């Protein structure tokens, strides 16, 4: 699936939730099931420090597609990460670079990507794109 198709799918899924509680319970459950980053990558090099929660991100490229794994010490942050990884992982670097994150507004999670939130997610998206740019350079 393309990034856009996955985003549409997520928007559809979220439209079934009736209130914030269902939405958050879903995110919390997602956070609990997020495939954890391998312990060897949970290091200072992979950390994105938010003022409140920490995020670790690792990237690899196989067959011209970038795979991301990530983790956070806060579970709701982890839930948002799970959604972002579902969108961005296993995609071509060029598609990742061009993608936007407007769908986050549509699913009612905009506040988590606010720079004042200090949870590391804004920096995380930047980091995902930086990895994509780096891998794209390798492909050129």
């Amino acid at each position: 699936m393309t990034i856009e198709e996955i985003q549409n799918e997520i928007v559809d899924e979220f439209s079934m939730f009736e209130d914030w509680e269902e939405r958050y319970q879903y995110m919390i459950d997602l956070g609990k099931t997020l495939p954890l980053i391998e312990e060897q990558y949970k290091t200072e090099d992979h950390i994105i420090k938010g003022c409140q929660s920490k995020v670790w991100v690792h990237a690899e490229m196989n067959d011209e597609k970038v795979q991301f794994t990530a983790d956070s010490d806060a579970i709701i942050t982890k839930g948002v990460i799970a959604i972002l990884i579902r969108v961005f992982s296993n995609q071509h670097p060029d598609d990742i670079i061009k993608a936007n994150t407007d769908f986050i507004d549509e699913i009612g999670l905009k506040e988590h990507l606010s720079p004042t939130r200090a949870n590391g997610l804004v920096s995380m998206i930047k980091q995902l794109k930086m990895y994509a740019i780096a891998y794209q350079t390798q492909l050129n």
Partner: protein
Amino acid sequence: MIFDVKAIRKDFPILNREVNGKPLIYFDNAATSQTPQQVIDVIVDYYSNYNANIHRGVHSLSQEATDAYEQARLKIQKHFNAKHPYEVILTSGTTHGINLVANGFSSLLEKGDEVIVSALEHHSNIVPWQMLCERTGAILKVIPMNENGELILSEFNSLLNENTKLVFVNHISNALGTINPIKDIIEKAHSVGAAVLVDGAQSCPHIKPDVQELDVDFYVCSAHKMCGPTGVGMLYGKEKWLKKLPPYQGGGEMIAEVTFEKTTYADLPHKFEAGTPNICGGIAFGAAIDYMNQIGFDSISQYEHGLLEYATEQLLQIEGLKIYGTSKNKTSVISFNVGNIHPYDIGTILDKMGIAVRTGHHCAQPIMDFYKIPGTIRASFMFYNTKEEIDTFIASLKKAVMMLS
């Protein structure tokens, strides 16, 4: 005056609003307090009727604004019982006051001099002193704390010696709510000839410090934590110290005479008030002090202590909940965690239910490092909060814990 929380709440328009569809419960008072209509009216009145620059104009508006501003200084002087009005420097807030003193001392300290801070400090009371020590070659020492979040005074005594020039300590810890024994600390520091600066940012909203009785050398606070506006605060300094310190910033207002060869500085307090001050803020600060005094600090402390005890008791019934800062001498601040749940997660869910608490390290990372935690959830109460709000908070917290476990 009888303490009537229902009537008091009517003074605060913001308490009527909803957040995420729920009535706002505001428990982030240690970060900033809310503003009563009486203070908002003063701000509106200033800009509607007598906005003008002060101390210079001969016209009527300027006179009126100057009178109101200086009247506010007198109110502040009286409130803190400073000996002279010119010992009250109006600043942009606590951090400004601390930096002003730290900067002044950089010309008074020598290599090998010692500066003592406490382990309970806010970053704003650590960083300026680190910078001061870097500039002067002075040595920074730290009064350690115990598991209850109290300073270990015996350790403080052993840090003191003839090289100690300055001691900096907060009156009340912002992260834990501990009330520090500052009178004792001041007395001991004075016995070796050291000056003491007390950060009163967290105390002034709850108690009424008497700077002469404390015999403190410098005392700083912010208006926005005591029902006033942001961007204004007070530095109290004993006359002898304020005369010794060089000016912090150059500019208008702070000079007596300027030629290209030499400038002579204005007398206190203007020496430290360069440029156009926050005139409206200063006047509103005075109004906030009037408002709080009208309710009365004895009533405020007593009522808030009731809230603290009630909330503590209710919180401790939640399984796995741990309170950080368990001193017997505390103000209405409760810092806690539940099990291994990240404070950020609980704060996020509480916000969804209209409850404002603070989460994180509260700009006091050394305290979090001491307890080996990433941060805490901090609920802090003011005299306009109620037990009913605490009940809703507890129920919401239980729900958040259930969702997150």
